[in-house]
């Protein structure tokens, strides 16, 4: 019951934006907390997984804060936030050196303390998913990250991307089929490697 009241009393995004413009730092902090996953999805859709994702996300939020006054209210604030973050990520990537070193998703696992067995398995699964995500074309990755990383519904994704809901569904189905195929290939490769190791 209290949770329902809490939700009803929660300020809207527009109200938080107005209060942020009035210098209410707490209101802007709430906006950041509320849209962290969305902004990560926007940035990762452009940059993929990388060491500088956190920095780009923070800079995107700073840009969002400095440009709050230009939000005209023609769309939902979340749509505007997504577009500012995405544009910022695109600009940052285009300013980068062209010869970027591809990331080895397995590398951080090797240097980290594996901890309990389940945690290691979870991290391996995550690394596998990240590798697979990196193989997807931009739009497919974007939809998958909005759906699973940002936890958005189909209609929300459609609004964010400015496409019909049917397109979102199709993109997501295709992306998952592609990921499924990649994961199957990956596990076959791993099986083959295991067999080779046993023979040797």
């Amino acid at each position, binding site marked *: 019951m209290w949770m329902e009241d809490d939700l009803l009393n929660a300020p809207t995004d527009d109200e938080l934006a107005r*209060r942020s413009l*009035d*210098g*209410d*730092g*707490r*209101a*802007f*902090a*709430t906006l*950041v*907390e*509320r849209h*962290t*996953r969305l902004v*990560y999805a926007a940035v990762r859709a452009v940059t993929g*997984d990388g060491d500088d994702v*956190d920095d780009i*996300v*923070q800079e995107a*939020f*700073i840009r969002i*804060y400095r440009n709050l006054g230009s939000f005209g209210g023609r769309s939902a604030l979340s749509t505007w936030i997504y577009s500012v973050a995405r544009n910022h990520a695109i600009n940052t990537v285009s300013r980068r050196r062209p010869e970027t070193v591809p990331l080895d998703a397995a590398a951080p696992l090797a240097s980290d303390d594996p901890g309990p067995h389940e945690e290691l398995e*979870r991290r391996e*699964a*995550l690394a*596998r*998913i*990240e590798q697979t995500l990196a193989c997807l074309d931009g739009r497919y990755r974007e939809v*998958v*990250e909005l*759906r*699973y*990383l940002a*936890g958005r519904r189909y209609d929300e994704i459609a609004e964010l991307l400015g496409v019909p809901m049917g397109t979102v569904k199709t993109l*997501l*189905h295709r992306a*998952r*089929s592609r*990921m*499924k195929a990649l*994961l*199957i290939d990956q596990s076959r490769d791993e099986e083959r490697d295991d067999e080779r190791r046993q023979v040797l």
Partner: protein
Amino acid sequence: MRDDRSCERYEELIPDLVDGTLSGALAGEVRDHIGRCPGCRRSYEALAGLERELGALPSLVPDGAAVAATVTGRLGLVRHSRATALLRRIPLDRLALPLGITAVVLATWRFIGGIFEGMTAALTGWLSEIAGAVGALSSSSVESFDPLILATASALMLIACAVLSLTALRIVRR
């Protein structure tokens, strides 16, 4: 037994089944087929497995509160309440400097005036005015103050004015 034509149709419905967006009857039909067709079952299991693995993606994102703390820190935003935010709207940047300068000029003027009129008399008069304003001291008691004490009090007031001005400027810069 695999029937390619019907399998093709079910393959298309499997993602919806995993999403939970199929109607009850249709979901039942697809589940029936999956139960009978090993190929479609493998496809369903692979997709359901992928769905579970994708469910772990949010753990890649740091806690929103931590991100908010870093961002507001980088912006130099103090996480004020609404009331404090309203107070911050008072244009201290426009008021602080003129107020500070006025205070220092007034104090200096009174002090210099004291040199011409006789330092002791001026300071006594000044303190009498202040004492009268706050009602804490009577003019008769002020007249009996030692000149050294009066000079010290005046110097302290000048320092206080300067400190107030500097503090106001620091608030504005923040």
